[in-house]
């Protein structure tokens, strides 16, 4: 029964969506009255982010960043006041379509901002493809969103998983490493990061000797650490996050591998865990689109304003949320807040040059940031920037036909 109802909804909505779209183009033709009306109403922004569970901290950082961008524009975007709608997605992929529908159907939001978990991102994609609602994803790096599942209304202000490890190939080559082993969880993000690294390293003539996978979300690494010791590669590249990353770094040290085989990784390996791992992280080098000590004017101003507003230090997630706000502002400014001019908003967002705390970036054809990847090194409790590992790295966006 419920299932029938749902598919019925979807169909009705699809029809509704297409008539609304036709209506919007018509309204565009009768510009004066249409615009006056649009500007009186508040802009409806829907935040679909995790506010409970493991990723709650990330959801809060993204929200803070986004609101800071809005606040810098006098609390308005494209000259319009904002009405906020919030849904806690709990990082639960099973509830993703239902949660996205709450914003799209019940609240009729103009823009959806979300989310952290890649599985939830793919669940949202189904709903937002049908509704055509403008969507900015401030984190989840699933390759498909800006790959085979890309769409004109899908935007991302963070990274693709592939991007976070691709530049490491060059880094390892420069250090003289010829062989490497990649270790990660066996799930989509891990495999995409492995692929990104493999392509980058093999282009440089390196050899990925072995891909090691731990079942997700297990954190027992001993067997594979022994395997690494027996393979004796020149370098190890890893991706884990959160508690798993903390445990991996400590186990790597306890197994006596630290200092014998240098460890590299996707930046998430050493983000947010350095307090927990003591000196086990020291010297680990990673690539990511943000780092400590960038020391640019924009980054300093952002960090200061963020710390002042929210009484905590910003991280990469706060930057991604902030940039989602900046990207949306660029789109809405161009059409003076008339979000019904969907094509105009999308065109302006596509052309935007975002002056981000991480440095300037633009969007690729598939709507993923083309951005500098920094090489960072763990020094004390910071991921200190060492330089740019890859200037303006673009995701290959395989299978995107939009």
């Amino acid at each position, binding site marked *: 029964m419920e299932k029938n109802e749902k598919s019925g909804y979807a169909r009705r909505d699809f029809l509704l969506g297409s008539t609304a779209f036709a209506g919007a183009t018509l309204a565009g033709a009768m510009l004066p009255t249409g615009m006056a009306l649009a500007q009186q109403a508040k802009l409806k922004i829907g935040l679909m982010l995790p506010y409970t569970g493991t990723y709650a901290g990330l959801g809060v950082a993204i929200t803070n960043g986004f609101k800071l961008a809005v606040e810098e524009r006098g609390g308005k975007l494209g000259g319009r006041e904002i009405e906020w709608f919030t849904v806690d997605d709990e990082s639960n992929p099973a509830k993703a379509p239902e949660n996205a529908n709450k914003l799209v159907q019940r609240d009729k939001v103009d823009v959806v901002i979300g989310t952290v978990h890649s599985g939830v991102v793919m669940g949202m994609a189904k709903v937002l493809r049908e509704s055509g609602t403008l969507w900015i994803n401030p984190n989840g790096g699933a390759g498909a969103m800006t790959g085979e599942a890309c769409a004109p209304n899908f935007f991302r202000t963070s990274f693709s998983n592939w991007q976070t490890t691709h530049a490491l190939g060059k880094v390892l080559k420069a250090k003289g490493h010829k062989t490497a082993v990649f270790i990660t969880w*066996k799930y989509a993000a891990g495999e995409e990061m492995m692929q990104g690294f493999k392509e980058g390293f093999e282009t440089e003539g390196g050899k990925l000797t072995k891909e090691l996978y731990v079942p997700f979300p297990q954190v027992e690494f001993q*067997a594979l650490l022994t395997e690494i010791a027996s393979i004796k590669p020149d370098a190890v590249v890893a991706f884990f996050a959160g*508690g798993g990353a903390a445990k991996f770094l400590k186990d790597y040290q306890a197994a006596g591998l630290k200092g014998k085989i240098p460890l590299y990784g996707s930046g998430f390996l050493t983000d947010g865990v350095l307090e927990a791992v003591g000196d086990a992280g020291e010297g680990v080098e990673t690539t990511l689109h943000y780092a400590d000590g960038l020391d640019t004017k924009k980054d300093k101003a952002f960090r200061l304003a963020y710390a002042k507003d929210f009484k905590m230090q910003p991280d990469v997630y706060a930057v991604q949320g902030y940039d989602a706000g900046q990207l949306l502002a660029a789109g809405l400014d161009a059409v003076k807040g008339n979000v019904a001019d969907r094509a105009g908003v999308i065109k302006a967002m596509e052309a935007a040059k975002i002056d981000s705390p991480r440095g300037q970036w633009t969007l690729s054809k598939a709507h993923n940031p083309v951005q500098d990847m920094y090489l960072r090194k763990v020094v004390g409790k910071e991921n200190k920037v060492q330089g740019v590992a890859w200037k303006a790295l673009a995701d290959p966006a395989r299978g995107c036909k939009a």
Partner: protein
Amino acid sequence: MDFAFFLIQLLNGLQYGLLLFLVASGLTLVFGIMGIINLAHGSFYMVGAYLAWSLSSLTGSLAAAILLAIPLTVILGMALERLLFRHLYQRDHLYQVLLTYGLILVFEELRSIIWGDDVHGVVVPALLNASIPLTDNLSYPVYRLAISGVCLLLAAGLYFLIQKTRLGMMIRAGASNRDMVQSLGIDIKLIYTLVFALGIALAAFAGMINAPLSSVFPNMGSQVLIICFVVVVIGGIGSVKGAMAASLMIGLGETFGQVLMPDFAGMIVYVLMAIVLVWRPEGLFGRA
């Protein structure tokens, strides 16, 4: 894989198996012997780990933290038994599932309020913070070996308690016929309170001594919960011996699985469970 590495993997497997037994021991007692389905087992494991972290940063010593935390978890266990579980012994298992699932949510939320959502590390005690070199580039952390020792002691202690003591006899009798035991003049209520509290304390203790290895992070309990049930089910409900055998089997299976069949490593545990249950539906050492 040459012979030296084969031996090291064997050691890894045994060590991991013992660790699994440690984590599952509380569940063996509460689910296996008392017959209570406790989905919140992982939550108590998490509570133990967070207590170890916060108390060891207060006192500066993990040993002191554990000594302080154990009485706290025993009291917590007794209070929960008195207030909640006691009322459900006579009811269908579904009520227990509902209650303990609710407890998972409550503990997870309390953890977030009291301790926050960050990842924390617990320092390995200085005395055990060393590694034994095995090959030119691999060494074995002494703390892991120490945990294995604790696991063996615990297993022996539990076996002795349940099979060889008067209290153990009463527990087993109570599990098979509560009313009869009561009418023989034994204070079964008190015994249940004690055993339940012991089960909770064991789960928390596992979290405490495992904290330096695993780190302390949100939802860490749900990671161990499923594997704990697998251990108890494969081993045979009510059998400490069985739980030990199952733990070692899973430890070795996972370790060699990850090395030899990496693509199927995630399935191995469940394949093992399926095979055992087809062959012996009551588990390895369970009573039919």
